[in-house]
C-alpha cells in the first residue's frame, strides 16, 4: 500500500485545515502503530474524507437531516436502506457522520464477505474503517463501543431493479439480534436519492464467483448520476429495553425487532420522498 506519509500529504491537500484538525479528535482505538486491530487508520480516514469530499459536497450535494440522533459515544447500529448498484450510499453516510458528529465518530460499515477479497479496494475500505461481515468482527466492534453501519437488505437491496426503487426488501434479522444481545440502540437511516443514481441494466453471474461476489452489475451509466442525496436519521430504537439479551436467540423475537427497524426506515423514506423537490434538486 501507499506509505503513510504520502497518505497524510494527500489528505492535507484535499481537506481544509479545520477539517483536518477535527479529525485529530476522532475516537479510534490505537493498537500500537496508529492502526486499530481491523486496520483502520487516522491518516487513511483523512485521505478517504478528502477523496469523498467532491462526491459529498459537489456531486451528490448531500443534505443531512437530524444527525443529532447519532449517539456521540457507545455502541450503536445505523440500519439503512441500500441501493444504487454501487455502494456510494455507504460512503456518503460515512462522510456525513464524520461531518456532523462532534467529536467526529467513525462509522464502521459492515461489508459483505467478498469485499476483503478485492485487492486494493478491500484494503482501502479496511483503512477507512470497513470490516468484513463476520459475526466475530461485529461482536468485537460492538463490545468496543463502536458505531456500526449495517444494510439489513444486503446485496438484494443494492442490486434491485430500477422499477423497485424505494421499495424496501425484507430486512434480515442479524442487526436486530446484535442490538438485543449487545444492548446497542439502532438508529434507522434512510438515504433518499441513491436509488436513482445508477440504474442497473443487467447483472452477470459468470466470473463473479472468482472474487466471491454474488454477481457483477452492469449499470446504464458509467458514472453515477448527480442526484441530490438526502440522509435522514431517525430517533434511536432501544430494542434492548423491550427484549432481554437471551431473547436474541429467539427467531420470532428478532424477526419482530427487525420488522420494527424496517418500518422506521420505511417511514423515513416516505418522509424524504415527500419533502424532496426532485431527483436532482
Amino acid at each position, binding site marked *: 500500500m501507499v506509505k503513510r506519509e504520502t497518505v497524510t500529504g494527500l489528505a492535507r491537500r484535499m481537506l481544509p485545515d479545520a477539517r483536518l484538525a477535527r479529525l485529530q479528535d476522532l475516537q479510534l482505538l490505537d493498537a500500537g502503530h496508529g492502526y486499530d486491530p481491523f486496520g483502520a487508520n487516522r491518516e487513511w480516514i483523512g485521505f478517504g474524507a478528502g477523496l469523498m469530499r467532491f462526491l459529498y459536497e459537489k456531486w451528490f450535494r448531500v443534505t443531512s437531516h437530524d444527525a443529532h440522533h447519532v449517539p456521540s459515544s457507545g455502541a450503536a447500529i445505523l440500519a439503512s436502506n441500500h441501493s444504487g448498484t454501487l455502494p456510494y450510499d455507504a460512503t456518503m453516510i460515512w462522510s456525513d457522520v464524520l461531518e456532523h458528529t462532534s467529536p467526529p465518530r467513525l462509522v464502521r460499515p459492515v461489508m459483505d464477505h467478498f469485499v476483503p477479497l478485492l485487492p486494493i479496494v478491500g484494503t482501502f475500505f479496511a483503512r477507512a474503517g470497513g470490516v*468484513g461481515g463476520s459475526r466475530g468482527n461485529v461482536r468485537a466492534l460492538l463490545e468496543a463501543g463502536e458505531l456500526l453501519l449495517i444494510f439489513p437488505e444486503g446485496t438484494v437491496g443494492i442490486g434491485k431493479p430500477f422499477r423497485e426503487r424505494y421499495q424496501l426488501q425484507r430486512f434480515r434479522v442479524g442487526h436486530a439480534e446484535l442490538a438485543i444481545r449487545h444492548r446497542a440502540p439502532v438508529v434507522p437511516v434512510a438515504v433518499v436519492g441513491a436509488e436513482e443514481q445508477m440504474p442497473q441494466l443487467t447483472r452477470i453471474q459468470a466470473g463473479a464467483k472468482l472474487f466471491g461476489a454474488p454477481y457483477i452489475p452492469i449499470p446504464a451509466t458509467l458514472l453515477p448520476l448527480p442526484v441530490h442525496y438526502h440522509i435522514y436519521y431517525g430517533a434511536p430504537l432501544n430494542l434492548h429495553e423491550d427484549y432481554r439479551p437471551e431473547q436474541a436467540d429467539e427467531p420470532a423475537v428478532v424477526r419482530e425487532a427487525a420488522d420494527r427497524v424496517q418500518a422506521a426506515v420505511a417511514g423515513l423514506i416516505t418522509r424524504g420522498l415527500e419533502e424532496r423537490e426532485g431527483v436532482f434538486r
Partner: protein
Amino acid sequence: MTRVMITGATTPIGASFVRRLAFDDAIEQVLALGLESDPGPELLELPKVVYRQIDLTRGRSLRDLLFTDVKQLGIEAVVHTAHHRRATDEGPRIHRLNVGVTRELMQLCQHHPTVRRFVHRSHGAVYKVKADQPAVIGEDHPLNLGPSTPQWIRDRVEADLMVCSQMGMCPMKVVVLRCAEVLAPRSGSQLYDYVSSRVCMRPLGYDPMINLLSLDDQVEALYRALVTEDAQGVFNIPGRDTLPLSELIHMMGRPDVPMPGVLLSPLYRLRGRLERREFRYDMNHWRFHFSGVLDGRRAKAVLGYEPSHPLRPTELAVHWHMGEDTIDLMRQQ
C-alpha cells in the same frame, strides 16, 4: 508452583524463560531439558537450574526422566515449549516430536505423583485466517486443519487439540497458550526469516494486519500461566505490536515490493531452495492477504497478562549484519 520443568530450554524462548525463573525468588527449582549436550554457561551457571540433555522422541528416556529426576526434584509444573522449528522440515520424525512427544508427556504427567500443572505453548498459526473469518481472533475461532495445511501448522493444531482434550479430564490443571508469532532469530519465526531477506515481496493490493509478540512478553505470558492459581483453559497471547505487513517491512528497513500474488509462491519456493531459507509462502498465503489479530481479553481477565513490550527492531536488525547507517537511522525513528 515453585518447582518447574521446561522442555525446549535451549531455544530462545525456553532459555529466556529459564533465565526469568532462575532469578525469581518464588521459584525454588528449575529442571531445564534440551537436546544439546552442552547448552553453554548461560544456562548451566544459572542459580536453581538443573540441565538435562534428552531426546524427547525416545519414549523410554522421557519416562525414565519423569520418574527419576522429576520425581526426586518434586517438580510441580511442566512447561512444554519444544516443537520442531524449521517449517521446511517435514515427515514422521518431525511429527513424532511435535505431536507424539506432547501426547506422551501429557499422559505421563497425568499419573505423575508430583506434577500438578501442564502449560502447553501453542501457536496463533493454529487459527484459520480467511476473508470470511473474523479479523480479531477469539479462542473459539476455527482452526486451520484443511487437507492442504502444511505439516508445521497441522502438527501444532493436533498437539493443541490433544492437550485441550484433557482439560478437566485429569487431576492436573492444563493451560494452553496460543501465542502470536515471536519475531526472533532461531525461534521458528516465519516472519523473522521473511523480513531478514534483502527484499520483501508481498501480494499486490493486500496489506493485512498482523500481531507480533516480543520475547519479553512471551516469557511473561508463560510465567503468568505458571503462577496463576487454578487457571485452566485456552488463552490467546497477543503481542504489543499490531500493524500492517507493509509497516513491519518498513520498520525493519526492508524494501517493500508488492507483486501479483500468483508469482509469489514460485519465487519464494525458488528462494527457499537456493538460499535454504525457512520462509514458506504457501504457509503464509492467507495471512498475507487477510488480517488475523489475536484477541487477548481472556488472558488479561484470567491470567492478568497484558502485552507491554514492543518489538525492538534495532536489536533484531543486528542479526542480519545490517549496515551501521541503517541501524542508526532506525534508532532515530
